[in-house]
């Protein structure tokens, strides 16, 4: 019995050491969760590098020119969301962050930023405003950045463009019996559509317009695309009849729940609850979210990032936003510890990550500064 004591000590120390590592890597989570201004400012300063640097598609290496273009676009789009959220949370940052958002929008509306969408559709998204081509891959996401820019700075020079983009997509959604539009010709992803649902709610808040009935129909229509067993959102649907052609997945559900939070906190919460119930997990202080429910799925794709032992990189990262929005501090801390450990923070401010790159840094900025639901409700 006495001889076993060192072995017992060894076995007890292992999980304690793991727990210590999780505590060490999650040490900045409290400040982010509480929304400390200094922490938000540090993240904002870190992302400036990717806003100001002359990035192009060659800076991304997904192996597919379209995805490289999407990542370039998403870097500035998510940065704009991060700047907007922190400006709304800390009004004293409003002026400085409005200027940063302006630079993001300048880059987002550059013809090179929408080349990925133009190549897929065969026509330019901004030239097509008013046509029957929805261009959701570009316009859906752009609308959210534009509407938040207007909320931060009603006098933004992009206000007119925001109104035109919203009017274009409103017309397309009103004409859609499915309640979903094509990201690219013949491809419909509910997640991409939800970025516009969020944008429309923000637009109404800014302008006083009322698209409540349309928004209610669109948000209600998402129910049809949720897995009846788990409540998770299907990643891709048939453009003809809306039947699912991909599984319900963590990455799409989590990002959709984030975007939907701008429009409908209860629906966002319901999607988050589905994630927690079926995909969420934690091991000795490190949190993670699965990409697929157990028994389904594979190794992942460009949306999910690598799927290791079932745990999805994107699903885990996107869920950071949900944990903050819906007040789940333990989950936020666990996911943040995992992000810092695996992502490899290379500065003490948590602004650059070895495995993040431009898109990872911008995503973490937007996701960790997502506004808690009650603060968003009180924001005007």
């Amino acid at each position, binding site marked *: 019995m*006495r001889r076993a004591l060192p072995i017992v000590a*060894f*076995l007890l*120390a292992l999980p304690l050491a*793991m727990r210590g590592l999780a505590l060490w890597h999650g040490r900045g989570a409290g400040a982010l969760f509480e929304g400390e201004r200094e922490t938000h400012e540090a993240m904002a300063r870190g992302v400036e590098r990717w806003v100001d640097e002359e990035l192009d598609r060659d800076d991304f290496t997904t192996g597919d020119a379209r995805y490289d273009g999407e990542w370039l676009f998403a870097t500035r789009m998510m940065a704009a969301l991060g700047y907007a959220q922190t400006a709304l949370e800390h009004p004293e940052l409003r002026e400085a962050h409005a200027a940063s958002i302006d630079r993001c929008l300048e880059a987002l509306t550059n013809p090179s930023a929408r080349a990925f969408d133009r190549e897929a559709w065969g026509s330019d998204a901004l030239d097509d405003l008013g046509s029957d081509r929805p261009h959701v891959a570009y316009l859906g996401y752009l609308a959210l950045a534009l509407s938040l820019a207007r909320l931060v700075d009603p006098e933004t020079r992009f206000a007119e463009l925001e109104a035109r983009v919203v009017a274009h997509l409103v017309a397309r959604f009103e004409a859609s019996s499915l309640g979903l539009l094509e990201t690219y010709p013949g491809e419909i992803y509910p997640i991409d559509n939800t970025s516009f649902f969020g944008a429309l709610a923000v637009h109404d808040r800014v302008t006083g317009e009322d698209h409540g009935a349309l928004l209610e129909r669109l948000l209600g229509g998402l129910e049809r695309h949720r897995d009846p067993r788990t409540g998770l959102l299907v990643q891709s649907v048939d453009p003809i009849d809306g039947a699912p052609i991909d599984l319900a997945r963590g990455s799409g559900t989590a990002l959709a729940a984030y975007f939907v939070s701008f429009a409908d906190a209860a629906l966002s919460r319901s999607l988050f609850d589905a994630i927690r119930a079926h995909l969420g997990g934690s091991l000795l202080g490190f949190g993670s979210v699965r990409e697929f429910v157990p028994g389904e799925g594979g190794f992942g794709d460009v949306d999910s*990032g690598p799927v290791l032992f079932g745990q999805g990189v994107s699903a885990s990262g996107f869920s950071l936003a949900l944990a903050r929005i819906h007040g789940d501090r333990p989950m936020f801390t666990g996911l943040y510890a995992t992000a810092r450990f695996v992502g*490899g923070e290379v500065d003490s401010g948590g602004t650059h990550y070895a495995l993040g790159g*431009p*898109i990872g840094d911008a995503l973490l900025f937007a996701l960790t500064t997502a506004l808690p639901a009650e603060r968003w409700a009180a924001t005007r």
Partner: protein
Amino acid sequence: MAILTALVLGFGEVAAHVAVDRNAAGALLSPAGADPSAFLLAGLYLLARFGGAAMVCLTTGVGAAELAALALRRMDRKRG
């Protein structure tokens, strides 16, 4: 063992900084089109990261076991 752990962790830190400078992030997020050198760099970084964590855990475990053995020896000496 502690020195080896420090070396592995140090290597991980260096690899992390080089990975940022080389913008190797996409290599693991989407390996399909990754530049082989970026993929190798990102892989080395991850290896050092997980290896370093495993070494920290092992060092702590071995340290705890040695402390327990030392405590037992002292108790034996006092009795003996």
